[in-house]
């Protein structure tokens, strides 16, 4: 039992370490050696002498690590968490390799639990949930086995033998702890504002993705695909028809210096009158990742209203852009009217040049042939809409490539339009905005994401960095900023996704989304909603509004909880059947014996009474053991009192010996 206890303790430590890894990753340098050590400790425990020899080593290393942690905190002013984790892991390894005693057990449990708390400080994925459950079950086993064996040993008694029935029963108790934990999690009132979880914002990197600038200056490489998930969008009031062609607008840029777009924020920038736009409101609940580039709120254009649902605060910036403040991943609910006004209405618009509008005609010095090209579009069209559409259509004839131009000379707008005639979206949007501005039409560059992958498992749209896109907005007095996308259609979305593992990835993303929604970002709002739905589901169907997706997920949650209960109940029942006195154990052993002899073709008749069965196998190997076992079984089955524990043990060993003899006999012929 003590060996079992030591193994369970090592396994518990390993599970705590894995749980920590789901949050913090492999950043702490000691994670891998500690994991290896704990893995070894599950199978090999050092003897008493080896443990004594290791003790000074632990102390020296612990001292060094404590010094290092102190230095990190007081001198370097660095992040103290990782040095502390190194120290924690060392102590945990040392404790797992020590002889188990009472205070050691308490220390060991405290250390593993500390690792779990450390993991919770990060933003671990759904694997945390799975490992947490395993941890609770193994912790229950470890503590109970440790407590019983220690109590027995302290009184000079042998520890109780680790029977499968008992272990199953204790594991079922672990499920009870998980159920309590879930209950507390669901119903403990979320009255406080949450802190920022240690999530690292997605970096603005050289790879494909959103950045807070639009530039055509880069050259000499190609843009690497980047499948990191940026947005997960749910549509509470119904999913739009074509989720693949939705423009998730982020920021707009009104100033171009020939290479890079930038933003000059003016309070008087005209904004879009979304109320006038046709079409119905599309509601979106967006679970966004924090981006290093900017705290931008993404949504379908034009936005009617934004409401923050997480611990961030959203506000309307200049130029129709929405931003947020807060140090965590934002969640917000957006209402928009994304249907573009009818072309005929847009054709009737008369341009009125106010100073605010004129600011969107700013241009850097440009070549004569580019100016001539812009003029040709202006002359050919009678209104702004046709002029914009013509440029858009013309640019659609170009090619799309993620390869950047080879030299700085080639990384210019002129080279793109007149020689290369291929590029990525920023070239297209820049070209269109410049041609419009040169032709007297106020326009600006916007960036964000285009499309996304619809996740059937989760019922939401996943937008990754691969969907980053740049397009153009044109000013139509009376309507506001209307989007145009000059990039050739079909060039952007889906081109770089890993098709082979798509469904698996969708499944995992779906899981991750639910984990984030129902666990990491569970708040008072969700909690009250859950209560409301629970009460709602209890009211008669006729009075209830139509079931929504939330009801379904609540039902699923309840089903999962019920399943957990059933599993715990079944474990308890089977454990009880195992453990109930001698009788059922005796029957089980007897049946095992019968089956083994029957597999060997003995005895001939199937339904022999026990004593005749013994008579029938008289000359077969193991018969003497079998007779003793059957006698005990008959006594247990028909005797007045159940077998004692020792008799059950004898029965078990007799059956085992009989089967051993039988196997040996069979091998010998």
């Amino acid at each position: 039992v003590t060996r079992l206890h030591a193994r369970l303790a090592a396994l518990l430590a390993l599970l705590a370490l894995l749980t920590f890894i789901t949050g913090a990753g492999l950043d702490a340098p000691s994670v891998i050696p500690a994991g290896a050590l704990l893995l070894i400790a599950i199978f090999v425990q050092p003897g008493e002498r080896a443990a004594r020899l290791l003790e000074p080593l632990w102390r020296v290393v612990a001292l060094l690590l404590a010094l290092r942690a102190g230095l990190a905190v007081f001198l370097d002013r660095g992040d103290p968490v990782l040095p502390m984790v190194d120290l924690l892991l060392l102590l945990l390894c040392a404790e797992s390799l020590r002889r188990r005693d009472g205070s050691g057990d308490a220390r060991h449990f405290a250390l593993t639990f500390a690792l779990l708390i450390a993991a919770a400080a990060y933003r671990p994925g759904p694997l945390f949930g799975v490992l947490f459950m395993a941890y609770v079950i193994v912790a229950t086993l470890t503590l109970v086995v440790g407590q019983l064996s220690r109590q027995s040993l302290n009184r000079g008694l042998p520890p109780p033998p680790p029977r499968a029935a008992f272990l199953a029963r204790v594991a079922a108790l672990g499920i009870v702890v998980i159920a309590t934990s879930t209950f507390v999690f669901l119903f403990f009132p979320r009255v406080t504002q949450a802190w920022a979880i240690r999530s690292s914002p997605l970096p603005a990197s050289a790879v494909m993705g959103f950045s807070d600038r639009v530039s055509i200056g880069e050259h000499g490489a190609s843009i690497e695909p980047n499948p990191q998930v940026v947005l997960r969008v749910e549509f509470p009031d119904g999913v739009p028809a074509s989720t693949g062609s939705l423009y998730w607008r982020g920021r707009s840029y009104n100033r171009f210096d020939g290479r890079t777009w930038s933003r000059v924020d003016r309070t008087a920038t005209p904004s879009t009158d979304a109320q006038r736009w046709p079409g119905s409101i599309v509601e979106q609940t967006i679970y966004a990742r924090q981006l290093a580039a900017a705290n931008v709120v993404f949504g379908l254009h034009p936005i009617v209203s934004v409401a923050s649902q997480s611990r961030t605060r959203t506000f309307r910036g200049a130029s129709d852009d929405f931003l947020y403040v807060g140090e965590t991943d934002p969640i917000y609910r957006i209402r928009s009217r994304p249907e573009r006004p009818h072309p005929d209405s847009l054709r009737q618009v008369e341009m009125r040049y106010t100073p605010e509008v004129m600011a969107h005609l700013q241009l850097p010095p440009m070549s004569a042939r580019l100016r001539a090209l812009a003029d040709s579009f202006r002359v050919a069209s009678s209104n702004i809409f046709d002029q914009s559409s013509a440029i858009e259509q013309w640019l659609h004839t170009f090619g799309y490539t993620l390869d950047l131009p080879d030299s700085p000379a080639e990384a210019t707008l002129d080279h793109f339009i007149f020689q290369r005639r291929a590029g990525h979206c920023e070239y297209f949007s820049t070209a269109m905005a410049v041609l419009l501005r040169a032709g007297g039409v106020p326009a600006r560059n916007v960036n964000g994401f285009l499309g996304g992958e619809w996740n059937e498992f989760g019922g939401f749209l996943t937008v990754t960095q691969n969907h980053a896109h740049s397009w153009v907005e044109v000013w139509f007095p009376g309507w506001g900023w209307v989007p145009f996308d000059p990039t050739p259609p079909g060039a952007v979305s889906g081109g770089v996704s890993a098709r082979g593992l798509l469904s698996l990835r969708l499944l995992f993303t779906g899981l991750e989304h639910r984990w984030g929604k129902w666990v990491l970002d569970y708040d008072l709002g969700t909690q009250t909603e859950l209560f409301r739905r629970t009460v709602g589901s209890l009211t008669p169907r006729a009075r209830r509004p139509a079931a929504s997706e939330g009801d379904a997920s609540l039902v699923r949650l309840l089903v999962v909880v019920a399943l957990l209960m059933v599993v715990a109940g079944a474990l308890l029942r089977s454990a009880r059947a195992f453990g109930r006195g001698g009788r059922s154990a005796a029957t089980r052993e007897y049946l095992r014996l019968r089956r083994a002899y029957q597999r060997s073709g003995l005895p001939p008749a199937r339904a022999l009474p026990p004593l005749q069965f013994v008579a029938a196998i008289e000359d077969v190997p193991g018969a003497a053991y079998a007779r003793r076992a059957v006698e005990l079984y008959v006594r247990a089955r028909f005797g007045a009192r159940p077998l004692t524990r020792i008799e059950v043990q004898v029965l078990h060993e007799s059956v085992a010996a009989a089967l051993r003899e039988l196997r040996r006999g069979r091998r010998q012929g």
Partner: protein
Amino acid sequence: MAATRPPWRLRLQARLRPRRRLRVLRPGAFVIVGTFALGLATLNTGNNLLYLLMGALLGTIALSGWLSEQALRGVRVERHVPRAATAGEPVHVLYTVSNRKSRLPSHGLEVREQWPGATPSFVAALEPGETIRTRSVLMHARRGVHPLEGVVLGTSFPFGLFAKERDVRLAGVLVVWPRTDRRLRAVRLGGRRGRRQDTGSGSAPAAHRGDYRATREYRPGDDPRDIHWRSTARRGEPVLREYERDAAEEYWIVLDTAAPDDVVAEAAVDTAASLVAAATARGDRFGLAAGTSRLPPGSGHGRAEAALDILAAVRMGGGRLLPPAPAARCVLVTARPAVPGGWGDVFRVDGDHAAIDAAEVAT
């Protein structure tokens, strides 16, 4: 025999004690403090995963409470106290513990006597319907007739965080005899040495006891070998034979209950008990007078047990010293510095020798 009643304060304490008690053990205290700390951190930070971890700790505490209650419920304890024990020697008390629940087992049960220094007995697992015998050891038993109030049934299952206890009311008496192993000189009645001091243990054969004299009714403590079976069969009740020499050689062991302090008093009782043991070993017929109790002369192991029972219960301290028979046939055990003459033999116990094992003071 009269059992010593515990003082009223202890009785009141026992009455006011709640039937079920919960003690927080050291790991339990850590878990409670840890849960509070984690709860504060959770409320402060609002980190949802901390709610999950706090829930796990709360679940562990709740499970501890529930399981410890289940472990104690439906468990029946019977106690088997030995006939008697000897002062200063460990006493083994046996228990029959049975789980009368139909479904749930009980784990980690502890049966503890409310006796200072008692080592509790431990039952690791008790399946539904199972009965187990276990024992506990009471150390440092003092001479006396001790009422045993009840046992405490406790458990710290499953995690060792809390100790839950329940009183099991079990009436019982533990008789602790005085020590009988003091080395004493042989009894010299009227200056003669005891005649059969070198005889082996057990009652002397009838041949050494002279002629058959009469029969009388059997009294508890008489040697069953002296039963006259024919008369017993005729009368329907046990009848004993008496021999001539029995009456001639019988003597009384008289314990003087006056003693200056407890140590001397116990030494006097031990001396009397050792005389009883020696007399039994020689097969002497002896009677016992201690305080107000009288045991008529007789021999054999039954008689010795009856005598030791009286000595276990005797209260020392004062009282008049009256010989129950002619003083010449009495062996006096006393702590008085001087006693009137005429006693057949006197064993004096004084403070100097009381604490040492032998109080051999001849007159």
